[in-house]
């Protein structure tokens, strides 16, 4: 058990935290950028135009059916080169997570918008509200409530999926852990257990509160509906 002392080595913990910061940074930027992308996608998905509909369908289905890791490789090794982009591994991660998060969030948005009963639109019309007023004051507030729990869950999934960044060579928390394991292999032969254990916990500590928030939102807003 003295392998645990690896965690007390000077520099080890701060470095892991730095690595975790990279993880969180990728996740946070991806989530932040997914929001506008997702809202636009969601709106596009509600349109009746068959061409747009088909494109969005293919986009969503492709993103959904491909493993995220495969998408990361496609983005990092394939797309960047084909389009002559200078995209580093971190950039590729963000790109993939935004495309993925955007598609998923778009689908959530579509679901939320379409789940609002037609009678809400009709009531707004009868009360003389303009389309814009109806959207801002009636539809959006309700859509957001239906959307939020699912979005927080999606954020959790994005955080978890950032772990794949290590396989593109991004120096995030797992990679830092591997470097530490490597550099201390001689003093701490059982360091692997402890370092991976700590990383495991770190992910849990980041994701769990998000799960709790999603749960709480779901509970809080479940009965805040008309039906």
């Amino acid at each position: 058990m003295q392998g645990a002392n690896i965690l007390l080595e000077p520099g080890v913990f701060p470095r892991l935290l730095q690595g975790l910061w990279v993880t969180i940074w990728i996740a946070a930027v991806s989530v932040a950028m997914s929001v506008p992308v997702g809202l636009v996608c969601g709106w596009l998905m509600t349109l009746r135009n068959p061409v747009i509909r088909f494109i969005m369908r293919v986009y969503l289905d492709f993103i959904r059916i491909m493993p995220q890791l495969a998408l990361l490789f496609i983005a990092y090794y394939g797309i960047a080169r084909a389009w002559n982009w200078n995209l580093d591994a971190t950039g590729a991660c963000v790109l993939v997570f935004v495309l993925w998060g955007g598609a998923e969030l778009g689908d959530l948005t579509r679901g939320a918008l379409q789940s609002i009963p037609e009678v809400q639109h009709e009531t707004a019309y009868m009360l003389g509200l303009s389309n814009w007023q109806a959207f801002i004051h009636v539809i959006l507030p309700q859509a957001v409530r239906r959307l939020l729990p699912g979005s927080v869950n999606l954020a959790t999934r994005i955080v978890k999926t950032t772990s794949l960044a290590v396989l593109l060579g991004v120096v995030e928390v797992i990679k830092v852990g591997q470097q530490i394991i490597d550099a201390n292999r001689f003093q701490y032969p059982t360091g692997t257990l402890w370092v991976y254990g700590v990383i495991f916990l770190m992910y849990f500590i980041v994701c769990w509160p998000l799960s709790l928030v999603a749960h709480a939102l779901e509970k809080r807003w479940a009965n805040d509906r008309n039906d």
Partner: protein
Amino acid sequence: MLDWSFIERYAPFFVNGAWMTLFISVFGIALAIITGGICAAIQTARIPVLRQIVAVYIEISRNTPLLVQLYFLYFGLPKLGFVWSAEMCAIIGLGFLGGSYMAESMRAGLQAVPQIQRENAYMLGFSRMQTLVHVVIPQAISVSTPGFVANVIFLIKESSVVSAIALADVMYMAKDLMGITYNTYESLFMLIVTYLIILLPISILGTWLERRFDYARR
């Protein structure tokens, strides 16, 4: 353009990789279903202590990435003396992760069966077992199927991570080819095609199952 002779030459390796992916997925998903079933049963029956344990398990499983779970199992646990093979780790990892997702969809199915259906069965004289087999489960399946299918696809996708512990699945083959031959586009192309071949039929089958078990009630 793509080099088709290259694709022809290496296609068999992707077939092998696909078998590995399926092998890991089938056993991993089977384990996930068993784990999920037990958890869902415990949650639905509200068994005191076990219920809390299940709740903790579900939170841990859902809030940590499979890759880290695998590293921990594959590289971490040996330091405690448990050396499991890569296949074993992959299946356990997938089962551990999938168990919570499966539990969630099964529990949703069980809870969606209205109490009144059980009451009807009681009034008609059904035994507990008859109620379960002929009334509760057929209806629970209807609600569980979409989530269940989504989970199956999700787990097969997640299995791409097992290449990190040296299991020669589809992803591993693609990485390998890219590393040795540097034919990136062809490798990525085959990667995409192989996953489409594995996942599209499952996705279509899933849609069919959803329809099959949607008794379109109300």
